[in-house]
């Protein structure tokens, strides 16, 4: 015949057994439920963090690259602008130089021509003068019937010519 305990009964050894049972369950839950689940959740957290970190990193990298690219583009544009400006400036300078050179040359040529003309004129005048003086001397000599040295009458001839020139 199986007997029963009284409905209220205190037994130290049963209490001790139950106490040990709770400790065993604590160890079991700790080792077989909390530890593996916590480990997996931590791992997942780490993975998620890593993924987010990677994403952030690549985004900043992309932004950096974009910035760099834009910077480079801007600098390239600037460079191109500079080149064009430089070229324009050089061309302007060159053309200015060429114009000024041309004008200088022209003025030089003109001057030279003028000078040549003047010289020619002078020479012609001189020729005419000498011719006239010769002529005058001849006429005069004929008139006075005597030889007059051209040197003595140089001043006279000059004055005469000037007078002729002014009358003309």
């Amino acid at each position: 015949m199986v007997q029963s305990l009284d409905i209220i009964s205190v037994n130290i050894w049963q209490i001790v057994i139950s106490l040990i049972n709770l400790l065993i369950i604590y160890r079991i839950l700790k080792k077989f439920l909390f530890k593996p689940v916590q480990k997996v959740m931590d791992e997942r957290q780490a993975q998620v963090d890593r993924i987010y970190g990677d994403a952030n990193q690549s985004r900043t990298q992309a932004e950096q690259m974009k910035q760099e690219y834009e910077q480079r583009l801007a600098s390239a544009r600037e460079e191109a602008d500079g080149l064009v400006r430089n070229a324009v400036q050089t061309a302007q300078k060159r053309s200015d130089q060429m114009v000024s050179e041309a004008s200088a040359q022209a003025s030089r040529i003109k001057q030279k021509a003028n000078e040549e003309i003047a010289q020619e004129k002078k020479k012609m005048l001189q020729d005419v003068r000498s011719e006239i003086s010769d002529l005058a001397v001849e006429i005069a000599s004929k008139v006075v019937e005597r030889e007059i040295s051209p040197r003595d009458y140089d001043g006279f001839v000059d004055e005469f010519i000037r007078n002729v020139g002014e009358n003309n």
Partner: protein
Amino acid sequence: MNKDTRARVTDILLILMMVLPFVAVMALKVLTTPHSDEISISGALIYFTIPMPLMDLPITASQFNSLAVMISIFGLCLYLTHGIQVVPNSKRQLVAEWIVTKVNDLIRDNMGERFMAFAPFVAGIMALSAFSSLSSLLGLFPPTSDMNIVAGWAIIVFILITYYKLKGGLWPYVKGFFEPVPVFAPFNIIGELATPVSMSFRHYGNVLSGVVISTLIAYALQGLSKLVLGWLPGVLGQFPFLQIGLPAVLSLYFDIFSGLMQAFIFAMLTMLYIATGFDEDAYNARLARRKKAAA
């Protein structure tokens, strides 16, 4: 045998590990319960007695049922964490994570970050208490209606409370009993000792009262059924038809609600008593003093 089938076989074995202990203790109960028409409200059945110093140890149904509950919880743990992966691909992993997260949150909210190591302990109390109380649904003797079982848990809790009170120093602990005036010392000591007693009595009394009321009602309904439907011919007259229905509704309250409630209350009280027993300021002051003495 490939990996998939091996995992499935392991799952089946783990489920058997959860179910078989209960089947075994149910069989044991069916085989050993003395048949009687008399109403009998008594403690657990004694299977055998081990002579021990101080007091003999009777091994009763509560010990067997506790063992079954423990093996079942062990199996459940293994089942929930079997094939656990960083990227969850099974519902049971979600359940396992839900349990762990909930218990951790509970500890964090009620005890603070310092006591996070208590999570498995509190979960253990809850699981043991809830499973033990719910085992009455299977017609088993619920171990929580045996005072010795609950008293064991309450004693651990009492030891932990005292341990954490002593962390603030021995003198403040002793002085605490003589406050606000020394006359209060006996009451304070009784109050201190009343904590484990009230905890164990509350839990045990609740579950036991459920068992008693369920037994009484079942017995009463059996009698009523015989009285009202006894004129039916043959087996029909003997069959307690009135026992269908009402006991199920009552067991919904006494076994499920009350059992889970008491498990939660016990765990809650454990957390609160331990957390409030620990005086962080006194502990820090003591640490600082000790550091100063060492330096």
